[in-house]
């Protein structure tokens, strides 16, 4: 039997679609771990990145936070956090949150920095105060880049949440780790396929969210033909 066939049969086995180690349970576990981590990461990273970008200060700080964050291996954090906090979800959430923060900080910082100074001037001239100007002028313009950061972060977290299985956590990583230990390679590959599909689904659904968040006028502004036209004009 070919590898593809045995993986297909694994998916076809109704026993793998219910119960405590069925695909629906593992999907919920995986989504819960990733969702909590991205949410926590966004709660920390968005205000930080937006504030730094808006005031245009401590840019180095933002970049350094990101670089340090990227340099820390998630597996290392996971193992150390396990030593400190013991068995449970906390070490996994910590490791994934640390992974979630850097792309959001960098992108929000850059997004706010890139808002055209002329537009900010115009907003100030029309009588906007600081906070309304940030909320109604700068943020809508910055949404596409900020959301790109959130998307990158979420996809990375979904893909990395498989590590949870190494410290007895749930999620699709279970299939990879257990399949490997049991020499059941169809299970391992099925787990990898499921993670890849979930990462794709995350990317696509967050693109949808992004479309909803970006005001129509700005979407038009960013349409390729218009962007090319404005480049031409500037040139």
């Amino acid at each position: 039997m070919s590898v593809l066939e045995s993986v297909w049969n694994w998916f076809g086995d109704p026993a793998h679609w219910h119960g405590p180690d069925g695909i629906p349970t593992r999907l919920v576990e995986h989504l819960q771990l990733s969702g909590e981590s991205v949410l926590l990461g966004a709660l920390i990273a968005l205000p930080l990145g937006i504030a730094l970008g808006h005031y245009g200060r401590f840019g180095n700080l933002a970049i350094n936070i990101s670089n340090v964050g990227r340099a820390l291996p998630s597996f290392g954090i996971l193992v150390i956090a396990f030593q400190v906090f013991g068995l449970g979800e906390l070490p996994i959430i910590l490791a994934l949150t640390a992974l979630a923060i850097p792309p959001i900080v960098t992108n929000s910082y850059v997004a706010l920095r890139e808002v055209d100074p002329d537009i900010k001037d115009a907003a100030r001239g029309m009588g906007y105060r600081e906070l309304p100007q940030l909320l109604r002028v700068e943020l809508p313009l910055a949404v596409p880049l900020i959301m790109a950061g959130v998307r990158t972060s979420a996809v990375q977290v979904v893909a990395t949440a498989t590590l949870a299985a190494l410290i007895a956590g749930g999620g699709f990583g279970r299939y990879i780790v257990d399949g490997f230990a049991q020499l059941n390679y169809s299970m391992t590959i099925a787990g990898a396929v499921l993670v890849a599909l979930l990462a794709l689904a995350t990317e696509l659904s967050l693109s949808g969210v992004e479309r909803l968040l970006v005001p129509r006028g700005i979407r038009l502004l960013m349409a390729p033909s218009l962007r090319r036209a404005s480049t031409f004009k500037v040139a």
Partner: protein
Amino acid sequence: MIRKHRSTWLLAPVAALAALAILAAACGSTGTSGGTTNKGTLTIAGFDFAESSILGQLYGQELAHNGYTVNYKARLGKREVVAPAIKAGQIDMYPGYAATDLEYYNSAAGEATGDVTATVQKLNARLQPLGLEALTPSPAVDQNAFAVTKATATKYNLSKLSDLAAVGSELVLGAGPECPTRPFCQPGLEKTYGIHFKSFKSLDTDGPLTRAALANNTIQVGLVFSSDSDLNKLGLVVLQDDKHLENADNVVPIIRTKVATNDAKSILNKVSSNLTTAQLVTLNGQVELLHQDADAVARAYLQQHNYFS
């Protein structure tokens, strides 16, 4: 002031080193004093883990006490290194484990069982053509075992694996992710003992995850090795394998027939027969957790049990 402090700190290790050097010199001068006449020279090797070094010292020191000259090759390597060395006559003896050694010398033919006498018999059949023999196995055993916390043991009145059959449905089993498919693990517990657990949790094989999960009651029964050094410290109770599910990995000296005189055999068998798994756990703990030297730990054990008197 600061500088003065610093200089005393710097001096402390120097003083400690000097003291050590004097101590070492003092120890060296006492040397190894044999018993009566020299009965021959034996080289004892060990595997690359603490328990093997301790066992080697236990056997070796008792031989030395009875007039043999003993050389040690502790932590020589894995069985893949040690076994060829004894076949080639480079070493004379090593502390083996009945089932694992049988499966090594028979190229994993699957002859080992939970019956230690039968296992050693088969082992000897394999060893004889090589000019080797396995002596009488010790009751001390280093094999897969299932542990519960003292609290769980008291609550359900557990002392052996067959006690689990009645209460298994209330308990969670934790072990390495391969456990659900391995005959010595979950399937074996179901078939041999009729234990059906509430659920299984994928952790690690005898590692920190299993220990953490037992400690916070995520699981109630965990897979460990019967002579693990930290069992006492963690308050874990190993349930007796009363129906012999696990292969009999009893400690057994494997020795070259050429040096295995009746005198040497009787000395080694005496050490084996008096050693228990519980004592092995304590000895392993002294070396692995308290960082004492294997030779000192072995000497203290032999003295305490009146071998030297």
